[in-house]
């Protein structure tokens, strides 16, 4: 009898005590994203991802026993709005910020966060200079950098596939041009050795629909491979139009290309056989985090995110959560220190480790290829 009473007491206590936990003040983490504007789709997905991630974290007891609360600030892909959004988040007392999408939009925000000593983790900003330029002690990013992808492609194209005549197409925006420039840079030694040449290097205008002019020109340059370094909407159109025009050149997309919508836009028949330079996909890493996350996301929204960047945003939250747990403190210096040194952060995209400068360590790229069913498979040459 007495033992049962003790059990009841303990259960009651646990319930009450558990309830107490969530009466604590939440840890506010800011999310800066383009909710409106030309990249609205990326921003809205990022918000959804981070919110799902936050729910998962809270279900596990929150951070340091306190629930995490996400405060969203729209930066509309506009540097001015970005500065104001960052300022707003800072004034609302966020412990850290996940910001943002677009390198030139992230930069002014990063400066503000740095000046105000708030940890900032970018999820869609791949310009090299964000971490290699000015010194930023509070800036991190969970996404990769333009140069690592460019380097990977250059090496793969020449060494592994023996492609000589290389066509590079981008969209004249920061990410697309960034990867293209880096690729070009890493091809230079090969060009010097005479093992490669760039037969086409041009940009298309994003937001348009008819790329027949560019594609005709591409075809006339007679390339061995066609690397498109920008986003999936245009990539989808390009692939479709190219194949319908009878252009059979192998297509390689950068890591912003492969997703559900790309397959839809380009069409299953044309997507099969296209290559993608991509960080290891969740499906290949089999991370438990990925499975849990996608299940939760799918339950809420009916599908999984169609772009890699929102997933990096969710990973940013996971990284921060882990860092705060490790540091057992919400002071920015402690968090930054923890971020730099931690080794136990698990994200959807695998283990999250940062370099001294704040870059994501060890983002190995791999070459993937779409099969007839519209699924990505690791390519084994």
């Amino acid at each position: 009898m007495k033992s049962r009473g003790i059990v009841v007491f303990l259960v009651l206590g646990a319930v009450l005590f558990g309830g107490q936990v969530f009466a604590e003040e939440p840890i506010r983490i800011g999310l800066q994203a383009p909710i409106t504007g030309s990249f609205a789709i990326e921003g809205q997905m990022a918000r959804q991802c981070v919110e799902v991630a936050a729910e998962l974290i809270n279900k596990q007891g929150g951070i340091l026993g306190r629930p995490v609360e996400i405060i969203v600030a729209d930066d509309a892909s506009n540097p001015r709005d970005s500065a104001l959004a960052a300022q707003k988040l800072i004034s609302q007392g966020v412990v850290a910020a996940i910001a943002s999408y677009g390198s030139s939009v992230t930069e002014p925000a990063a400066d503000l966060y740095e000046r105000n000593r708030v940890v900032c983790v970018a999820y869609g900003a791949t310009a090299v200079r964000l971490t290699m330029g000015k010194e930023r002690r509070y800036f991190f990013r969970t996404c990769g950098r333009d140069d690592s992808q460019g380097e990977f492609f250059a090496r793969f194209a020449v060494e592994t596939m023996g492609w000589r005549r290389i066509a590079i197409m981008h969209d004249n925006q920061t990410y697309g041009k960034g990867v293209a420039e880096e690729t070009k840079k890493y091809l230079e030694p090969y060009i010097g050795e005479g093992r490669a040449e760039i037969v086409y290097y041009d940009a298309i205008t994003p937001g348009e629909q008819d790329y027949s002019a560019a594609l005709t020109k591409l075809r006339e340059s007679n390339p061995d491979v066609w690397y498109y370094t920008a986003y999936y909407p245009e990539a989808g159109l390009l692939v479709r139009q190219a194949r319908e025009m009878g252009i059979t050149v192998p297509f390689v997309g950068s890591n912003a290309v492969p997703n559900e919508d790309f397959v839809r836009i380009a069409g299953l028949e044309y997507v099969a056989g296209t290559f993608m330079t991509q960080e290891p996909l969740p499906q290949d890493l089999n991370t438990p985090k990925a499975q849990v996350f996608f299940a939760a996301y799918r339950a809420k929204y009916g599908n999984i995110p169609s772009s890699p960047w929102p997933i990096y945003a969710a990973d940013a939250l996971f990284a921060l959560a882990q860092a705060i747990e490790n540091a057992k403190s919400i002071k920015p210096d402690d968090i930054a220190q923890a971020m730099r040194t931690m080794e136990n952060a698990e994200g959807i995209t695998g283990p999250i480790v940062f370099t001294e400068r704040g870059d994501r360590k060890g983002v190995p790229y791999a070459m993937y290829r779409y099969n007839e069913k519209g699924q990505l498979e690791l390519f084994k040459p």
Partner: protein
Amino acid sequence: MRVFFEQLVNGVTVGSFYALVALGYSMVYGVMKLINFAHGDLFTLGSYLGYTFLVWRAAWITERAGLWWGVLGAILFAFLANAGAGILVERVAYRPVYRAGRLPLVVSALGMSIFLQNAIMAIWGPRFQVYPGDLVPTASLRFLGLSLPLLKVVILFLSLGVMLVMYWIVEKTEFGAAVRATALDREMATLLGIDIQRVILFVFTLGPALGGMAGVMNGMYYRSIQFSMGWNYGLKAFTATILGGIGNIPGAMVGGVLLGVIETLLAGYIPGGGAWKDGFTFLILILVLIFRPTGILGEKVAEKV
């Protein structure tokens, strides 16, 4: 040479879309002297409406009557719905502002454009929508050594047909004369007994309706649509209108096709041209305006001093 011809066809294709959009634009502009910034977004609306129709009903029609009836249905639906939308836009955003002059109208038009774009995003979501592949004809013709999608040919002929009909209406019928008269001098036209309201109604239903039709054809041809795609077409339409001569309806069509051809040739033949295409197009436009200030087909307005 073959490449040149091919690029030319490319240019005419994209140009015919510009021309269709410019046509509706130029009509409103010619009669109302209103730069309808919302026109590009009405074009987008049309393509979304066509998409909705196809997803919703077309499978049913296609099963019974065949692919092309589904296509026709989508075009008709967008045409009519857009006509309605056009009237609504005019009533809400423009009519109350006419008496205030041209500049407030521009701001109102900008506001309507922002509103429409975001409304489309709110209703259909920011994702790219894709026209269902099985409901769109994909056959091809072979012609002069080139493989032309049947849809492209149909679109070209349809556009041409529409343009000819519009030309005939505006230039050859009495009502068309009324439209042109209103474009030249609205006050005088009212004094002469022309029913301005009918003219405005005509212009604001047909213009957006044409834009909607162009939107559906665009969606079927290029397959993917997004809420922000209208801005680009709107600007091109404006450029085409100016290029062809303000208030000149055949001019808008010529301007549209010419614009498409110029763009395509620039992108195709200048090294790194794809990135500079828009810049060069504007430069050419500016040069045309400096040396032939009334546009290519000329403006039909003389000012008495």
